[in-house]
């Protein structure tokens, strides 16, 4: 194998696969994907439920099928892959240090790098769940791997904390496997995952979701024996008299995802404290020239289709950079989070890039609005540059808005763009 590549992609989930395809199609000669697992596909491999591909293919596929579509393309295009390989460090100049069993210690260089490491799950420690530390406390994704990849049940009686998508999907999966899901608890007054998962995974199976209710204590010395549940008010303070001991042997946590950026840090990439991912421009280039980022490593998406799309954009950008076709750093138009918006990705637009492709903005709302809303992109003077109506805004579902070519002139002229979501 070579030690110099045009584009090296770290991670072979949906973002990484799409980036490899786009980079190759855009003319990058030597493209390499480095994957730490033994097969391509990233987390899709364990996502055997459906719901993938509705936006891009208008087709409802399970995760592995969705992944396979891209894996075949990657293979057909002659993208190289390095499996069972862990990247230890990336330098700002694009040297990648990695190890595996067969090749030992590798030092590879790339003209452009795409970070596609995805995200990790928040743990019991990060939400500071009190109580003992027995076996039987798992993040939902770890339990999903046990069940769907290794073929083992990590428990029989479950309580699930958090109404994130993986938690709800696991509630259904475990029920199908004959386990009992006693309760799904959500500390927020609203669902944090997709409504369709609530309907298809909980309602359809008669499973109970309790909002504004959380785990107050984990009980059990060796294995979980029960959890103490408690209702909370808006400030998350326990409401007296609301405690209940729920006997169970397993607590699953679906309490949020965090972009995985340890390698980005080693490369000197600046991170946004709101998304926990890199600051990126509309080509998904980070603060370090030549280092791009795609997918959940940038911010946590709700649909895989958008991750794939981001991978295409980043892959094209990386290929262009590798071929020195990248337009030199010009003036940027910053994109800011306005009313009821937690963040906007990308963080800035390069006016030079506003040419053929549409630029898709991704936003997360702060508070749910259960009524028709208007998402607007406004310039520094409050002039609306782009807008889109939505039936509602929910923190668990990403808002997307495409800036279309007819708005490019206005966007180019702006010194700053701010996105708002307001009730209509």
């Amino acid at each position: 194998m070579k030690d110099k590549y045009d584009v090296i992609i770290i991670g072979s989930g949906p973002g990484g696969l799409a980036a490899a395809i786009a980079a190759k199609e855009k003319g990058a000669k030597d493209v390499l994907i480095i994957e730490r697992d033994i097969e391509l596909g990233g987390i899709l491999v364990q996502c055997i439920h459906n719901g993938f591909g509705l936006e891009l293919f208008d087709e409802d596929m399970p995760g592995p099928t969705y992944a396979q579509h891209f894996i075949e393309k990657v293979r057909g295009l002659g993208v190289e892959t390095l499996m069972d390989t862990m990247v230890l460090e990336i330098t700002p100049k694009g040297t990648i240090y990695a190890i595996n069993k067969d090749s030992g210690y590798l030092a590879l260089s790339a003209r452009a790098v795409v970070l596609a490491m995805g995200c990790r799950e928040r743990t019991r420690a990060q939400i500071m769940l009190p109580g003992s530390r027995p076996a039987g406390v798992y993040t939902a994704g770890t339990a999903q791997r046990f069940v769907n990849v290794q073929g083992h049940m990590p428990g029989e009686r479950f309580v699930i904390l958090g109404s994130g998508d993986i938690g709800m999907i696991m509630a259904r999966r475990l029920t199908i496997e004959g386990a009992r899901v006693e309760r799904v608890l959500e500390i927020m007054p609203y669902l944090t995952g997709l409504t369709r998962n609530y309907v298809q995974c909980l309602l359809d199976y008669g499973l109970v979701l309790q909002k504004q209710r959380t785990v107050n204590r984990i009980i059990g010395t060796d294995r979980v024996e029960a959890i103490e549940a408690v209702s909370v008010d808006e400030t998350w303070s326990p409401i007296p008299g609301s405690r209940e001991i729920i006997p169970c042997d397993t607590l699953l946590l679906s309490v949020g995802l965090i972009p995985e950026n340890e390698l980005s840090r080693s490369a000197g990439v600046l991170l946004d404290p709101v998304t926990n991912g890199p600051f990126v421009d509309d080509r998904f280039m980070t603060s370090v020239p030549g280092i791009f980022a795609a997918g959940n490593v940038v911010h946590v998406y709700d649909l895989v289709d958008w991750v794939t799309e981001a991978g295409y954009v980043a892959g094209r950008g990386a290929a262009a950079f590798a071929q020195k076709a990248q337009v030199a750093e010009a003036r940027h138009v910053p994109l800011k989070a306005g009313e009821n918006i937690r963040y906007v990705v990308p963080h800035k637009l390069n006016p030079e890039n506003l040419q053929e492709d549409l630029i898709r903005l991704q936003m997360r709302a702060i508070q749910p609005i259960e009524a028709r809303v208007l998402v607007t992109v406004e310039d520094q003077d409050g002039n609306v540059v782009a807008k889109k109506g939505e039936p509602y805004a929910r923190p668990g579902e990403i808002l997307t808005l495409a800036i279309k070519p007819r708005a490019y002139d206005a966007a180019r002229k702006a010194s700053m763009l701010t996105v708002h979501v307001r009730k209509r």
Partner: protein
Amino acid sequence: MSENYDVIIIGAGIVGGMVARFLSKYELDILWIEKTSDVGMGTSSANTAAIHAGYNALPGTNKARTNALGVTMWPKLSQELGIPYDRCGDYVVAVSDADMNMLEILLERGRRNGVPGMEIITGEALHRREPLVRADAIGALWVPTGGLSDPFAATVAVAENAVMNGVTLKLNTAFEDFLRDGARITGVRTNQGDFRGKWVINAAGLYADDVMHKAGVRPEFTIRPRRGEYVILDKADFQLTNRTILFPTPSEKGKGIVVSSSLHGNVIVGPNANFVESKENKDVTKAGIEEIWSGGKKLVPAINRRHIIAEFAGLRATGNAPTPNPDIAYDQDFVIEIPEAVQGFVNLGGIESPGFTASPAIALWVIDLLQEAGEELVEKPDWNPIRMPRPVFRHLSRDEQAALIQKDPAYGRIVCRCETVTEGEILAEIHAPIPATTYDAIKRRTWLGTGRCQGGFDMPRVVEILSQELNLPPEAITKKGAGSPFLYRRTKDVQDDHLRMEDLI
């Protein structure tokens, strides 16, 4: 039916381990029993990891004596046994005139205990060395002989060295009662059978009171577990300027809530000190976290809650034994004795902080006691004080890492990405002189699963490796011994994999 030994040691914490290791020097048949599945699972598994210089203990107490000697033994011990140890020094931070007076008292105590090199420095000097200390600190006691170690690594290292030198370690073996012949103790009854021994040594930590009561010794002695809670910060997010331990000025509750470096690279904050009823209650509580957080924040205002990646709690084995010297009014001293009431019994109890530091000195004291009691200890000609540490991949240079992978490809697969722990390290621990057979045993030895993802990534992989290496089904692999399995059963077979209505109701 029973086996015969010269010495039986009850309890495989750091104290039992040091006693076993130092006694293994002599021509003795030693049995060492532990009720849990691994060494170092009690108090030794959850503490500040400090090697205390010895300025806290009241001069004349057993604590002061063993602390002062113990701290001088660590440099050699760490060399011989491959235990991580850094004599980084520590500070006691003062913010008021009353605190400054207390520093004078500590300085004087330290001098009387024989602690070298201490000095009181100004707030300015303190901030020059550690700018993160609260701005209104007006001075500090600088203690150059304070340091840090790794209590897990230390316990494993001494235990391994003891086993290498012929000590028989029996895990999952719980003490139930003594065998006796009149006033002479002749052995122990355990859940694994009876064992005869000329001497039985109580190193049962939190349960030392129960053990001595069974021997008929010190009926008034009780251990009240005093829980200390801690939080661990992400090493990528927060570091002290230099590796050290920052103590507040101590109060009657103890040494107070510290902000400390650790040899694993994380800053830890804690502990508080609250009595709990149960000797197994290592719960972390909301109130406790608030208490230590506000304590830590007072000392180092820059710490940020967002950087917390783990919480844990440990129990101190706080006793109520008066110091042997009646002139010293102190009633939480270490018990280190051969009691007169029975024969054949060495009694250790109430070994709370600074027990980790003091443990090698306690072991030497036990040897003295045995010799004073007329036991003739003959040194083995082939005793080996050296135990080589196993490679820690993340501590190696790139060249060393490359060489290691070349030698053994298992070091080329990372199983824990946050802490960069390789399959090679895990396999080495599973096949070590004291095999690591549970997830937590591997965690304590390799530090896997302690980072940001808290085992989310490595856990399924470690269960697979353990299952393979121990030749057990995955359902038999546990977190920390009997009763703590990860997995219950296989998922339904493929042909069975359709919805059954009765499962859904």
